[in-house]
């Protein structure tokens, strides 16, 4: 069955609404894009949309109670919420190093979750 999908291209301020027509997963036609970048964007968004996931995880004994983390590279878009959910139960011990692996191979994606900043231990008596 021929189906239509709409994507808003994010590559420039023009923000083309790109229509992609497919049948059983095979891309038949892309239109509405002003340039080739828009076509490529729509095809990627249809076939394998990915996002880099960013969130925070809890830290014990750090200068702050949480540290920001991110997937080292983009993961399939459908897994974004699940990645955040599994990270909610992680608790690290300070100090945390920049780039430290917080969770390897998250949800079997082959992608590690890493800390995106260093977080030193809290020194006692810091006002």
């Amino acid at each position, binding site marked *: 069955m021929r189906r239509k999908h709409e994507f*808003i*291209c*994010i590559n*420039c*301020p*023009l*923000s083309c609404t790109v229509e992609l027509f497919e049948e059983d997963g095979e891309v038949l036609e892309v239109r509405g894009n*002003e340039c080739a970048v828009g076509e490529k964007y729509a095809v990627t968004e249809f076939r394998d949309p990915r*996002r*880099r996931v*960013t*969130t*925070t995880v*809890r830290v014990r004994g750090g*200068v*702050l*109670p*949480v540290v*920001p983390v*991110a997937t080292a590279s983009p993961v399939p*878009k459908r897994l*974004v*919420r699940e990645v*955040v959910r599994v990270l909610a139960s992680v608790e690290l011990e300070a100090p945390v190093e*920049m780039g430290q692996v917080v969770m390897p191979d998250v949800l079997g994606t082959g992608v590690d979750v890493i800390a*995106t*900043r*260093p977080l030193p231990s809290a020194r006692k008596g*810091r*006002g």
Partner: protein
Amino acid sequence: MSRTWKPDVVVIGAGPAGLGAALAAREAGLREVVLVERDFELGGILPQCIHDGFGSIVFEQVLTGPEYAQRFIERVERSGIEVLLDTMVLELRPDRRVVAVNSRDGVLEMEPGAVVLAMGCRERTRHQVLIPGFRPAGVICAGAAQREINIEGLMPGHRVVILGSGDIGLIMARRFTLEGAEVEGVYEIMDYPGGLTRNLVQCLHDFQIPLHLSHTVTFIHGRKRVEAVTVARVDGNRKPVPGTERLVECDTLVLSVGLIPENELSKKAGVALHPVTGGPVVDELMETSVEGIFACGNVVSVFDLVDYVTFTAQVAGRGAAEFVGGRRRHRGEVPVKPGRNVRFVVPQRLRCLDREVELYFRVERPEKSVQVRVLVDGKPVSSKKARMVRPPEMVRASIPAEALSGQVREVVVEVVPDEKEA
């Protein structure tokens, strides 16, 4: 007791602007560079901007806010720049005397050769957009909510309405959703979105969060905690249309209604502010109206892209080094004026007239198929095509050095329809 200290330059604020300016001043040869920061660590607002999208121009790769900050922090730590954390600047005088205070040194008085203002900006609050209603807990600015969630590990609310579609509001719509809150919708008074398109797609569409253009919040309900807000459609004059009101139950109203350059210190120093940008009037070295006081980043004008903040910081840091070294020469005074469909341009004037200049400007209204042109005394000296310009996206243009070499009266930046395409 206080001591008087005479460093080469004092940089006020250690966000991306201050970090960039301090490094540039140091790399330009200044020996004693003092970087003053009121927070307990370097980075400014970047550590709370945990999402990615930073650095695509400066580093040609996409980083999260903390990653972008860390690249500069590591360089500052190796550079010999004197960093004063937990230190608040209380006063800046027209003769560049800086009075600061912290709990280690007490009151610090400095008489630097130059000052760089890098205080960034603040969020516009409920009181600046005048929303009627009660004054319950649960009304919070988007950046403050971002700080609570990403730095303090707190959750400000569970059922959220967002007013304003600026980038921070869009980013927080996604962040609240990922942390398990329900975001009922984003309401925008204008008839176009306030944020970047990539944020509309990745923050709202990805999570099926509705964006209501030409809508506003007309009343806040709840005596102790927010219980609901009334939303309504607005007409072409941004006035609520009677009969379109709708009650939305929520416990939190997040405001993303604009940013204001933070210039309390600048005012005390007598620095002239621009009525449109709200920041200092600057020249091509980012020097303000007060000799030897430079400014960069969001204290000058809200730039949206941290990459542009870094660029202006590098100009200001190098400018401060030229000034301290006695090499800064003014050859004249040439205004840079906004022309057709241009709201403002930074810098607002040129005085050295001896180098290529990058200009940053915002358009007044969205426009398709245009040419961005820089005119020197009416003659185009640079032009580029753009398929679309929108007020939320700062535009860059440049003036080649040779265009400024003769007698120049004025520079105009304009956006005109691209006739070949039309």
